[in-house]
């Protein structure tokens, strides 16, 4: 769960990380009202759950209230990487002497928490890391370890924070680390940490990502007004529909509707389609043991998608049984009807029963099954993938 900058700064403040004066505004009028009481120039920062807002024109300055309103109007009109700007943060511009970078994140490969810092803060930190790795300070800690001031001070010193501010810099690093541990974070980042002309250290930005799976133990976030949120950019109407139905679904730019089993084969199946020259129209995860109703809904999403030329179906009956799967498909066929061509395969738990149910239903009502080529274990999944690509091509796909 990624937090907005203004929420991150709320947490920073709670952990005594200096964040400076700031005001949240939700409309150009509110911006006008607030900036009238501020020192100019004022920075207007679009609040979105993604990086790169600077490059997208989401950060502007203003020398007066009218300019602020005009610039805020531009910000509120932006959609950055799919995220519409719904609020802006107003801050008197800092007089910057130098910018540092401080981050805490997970090193999953080594099961550690890593504190990262650099004297070269700002947007180009990744390049610095790649080109001048010696300019990046790292310290790995085990999850149960406290980060002590003396170690933080050593980190701060290596970034070049000047002597009189070392203790303050160390405290910021310790507090950021404590925030990371306290709130089950995946990432906390201050970029840049600004050294102002009057020698104060201020966190000019705040990036905080928490572990969704641990939010349950931080009810105080909700008290602070920080609620669980959907973190993706603006969803397509289909993605929205899928989300409402609780189905992990993503629109892609191809034409083969993917109707696979678990997430693992969901990803692998996409590759298979590509290997045989096709392009999937979506990613979808059935979840474990989907009900017939859910299976029917998954098919609705694909069949009603005009981009989809053909559907690729695969089911490996694990705990979920192929007979239930077959029943779900039939439910869809009866309630909704299939307008696209579909090739599919069932294997695993009860696949014969699944095939038998299909055969029986088809004998009763062949029309229902006219667009379906159903296979069992005898046909390898690669053949099914190939066939899906062929079908899409026949329907005028790429």
């Amino acid at each position, binding site marked *: 769960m990624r937090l907005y900058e203004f929420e991150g700064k709320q947490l920073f403040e709670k952990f005594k990380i200096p964040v400076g004066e700031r005001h949240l505004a939700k409309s150009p009028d509110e911006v006008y009202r607030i900036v009238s009481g501020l020192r100019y120039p004022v920075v207007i920062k679009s609040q979105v759950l993604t990086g790169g807002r600077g490059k997208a024109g989401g950060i502007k300055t203003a020398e007066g209230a009218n300019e602020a309103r005009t610039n805020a109007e531009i910000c509120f009109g932006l959609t950055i990487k799919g995220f519409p700007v719904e609020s802006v943060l107003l801050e008197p511009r800092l007089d910057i002497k130098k910018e540092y*970078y401080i*981050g*805490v*994140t*997970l*090193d*999953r*490969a080594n*099961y*550690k*928490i*890593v504190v*990262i810092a650099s004297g070269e803060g700002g947007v180009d*930190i*990744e390049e610095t*890391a790649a080109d001048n790795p010696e300019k990046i300070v*790292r310290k790995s800690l*085990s*999850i*149960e370890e406290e980060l002590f001031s003396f170690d933080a001070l050593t980190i701060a010193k290596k970034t070049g924070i000047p002597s009189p501010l070392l203790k303050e810099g160390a405290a910021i690093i310790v507090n950021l680390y404590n925030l990371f*541990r306290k709130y*089950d974070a*995946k*990432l906390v*980042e201050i*970029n840049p940490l600004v050294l102002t002309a009057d020698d104060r250290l201020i966190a000019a930005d705040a*990036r905080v*990502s928490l*572990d969704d*799976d*641990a939010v*349950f*133990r931080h009810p105080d976030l909700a008290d602070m007004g920080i609620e669980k949120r959907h973190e993706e950019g603006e969803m397509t109407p289909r993605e929205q529909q899928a989300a409402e139905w609780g189905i992990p679904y*993503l629109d892609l730019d191809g034409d083969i509707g993917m109707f*696979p*089993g*678990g*997430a*693992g*084969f969901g*990803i*692998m199946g*996409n*590759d298979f389609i*590509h*290997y045989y020259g096709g392009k999937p129209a979506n*990613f979808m995860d059935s979840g*474990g043991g989907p009900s017939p109703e859910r299976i029917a809904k998954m098919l609705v999403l694909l069949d009603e998608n005009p981009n989809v030329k053909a559907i690729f179906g695969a089911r*490996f*009956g*694990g*705990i979920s049984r192929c007979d239930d799967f077959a029943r779900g498909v039939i439910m869809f066929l009866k309630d909704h009807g299939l307008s696209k061509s579909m090739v599919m395969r069932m*294997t*695993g*738990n009860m696949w014969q029963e699944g095939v038998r149910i299909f055969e029986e239903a088809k004998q009763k009502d062949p029309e229902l099954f006219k667009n379906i080529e159903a296979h069992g*274990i005898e046909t*390898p*999944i*690669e053949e099914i*993938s190939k066939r899906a690509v062929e079908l899409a091509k026949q329907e005028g796909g790429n």
Partner: protein
Amino acid sequence: MAILVDKNSKVMVQGITGGAGKFHTERMLAYGTNIVGGSTPGKGGQEVHGKPVFDTVAECVENTGADVSVIFLPARFVKEAAIEAVRAGIRFLVVVPEHIPIHDMLHVRREAVAHGATIIGGNTAGIISPGQANLGIMPDIAFKPGRVGTVSRSGSITYYVADTLTQSGYGETTCVGLGGDPVLGSTFDEILLKFEEDDATKAVVMCGEIGGVYEERATDAIRQMKTPVLAMIGGVYAPPGKRMGHAGAIVEGKMGTAQDKLDALAEAGAHPCKTFSDIPKTLAKLGV
């Protein structure tokens, strides 16, 4: 014969009195898995499918000799349950639940290492040594005793690969599901090295996917191994995932794309497979 579990493993179930615990205990027993008991705090003295329930893992270990455990509990209880297990002397632990808080898994991993225990999961379908023991939620239909080991992050891929090996007559020694959570109890390299020590395993198929860092960690192990390793990575054509900020990029560097993973593994000596049907072809070429 197999790695991590076989017919002699004494298996217990943590959360045996819960719905999922009960259901899968029955399935695992039906497969012939040597389940000796289970634990649920406050329910000591009960029985599930004829097996004794204890209040703590330690009591179960003491009374039944259990050395392997499968966890069927809500994610928020996994941290304590896993630590309880390794402290009680469980040497191999299967963590089925998904969505375990990441920081919890860091604690769990640390305890496991400290106690010399192996953990797979969270969010694993489990592990199966065909004909001997089936731990977790995997269907038995795809599996048959044989001579190839598999290790995978995804349950569905495990089934497809095993099915391929079974259909092509190779069969499996053990199939290990590492799990789908972002931080896992075991990594590819650790499981690969266990296969390397198993005489019955003539080759290993490892299946990774886009994202994460565990595939890259496997390269050193593959270089050390005499047993050939076949590698499949899902997500070569997947849209790139989101990066964990600058810090993620700095820590994990170029790791994470499927092609990067495939390249790194191939360079270490693994045999890349694009589709399942490449697996028996490659095995045949290798003379397995």
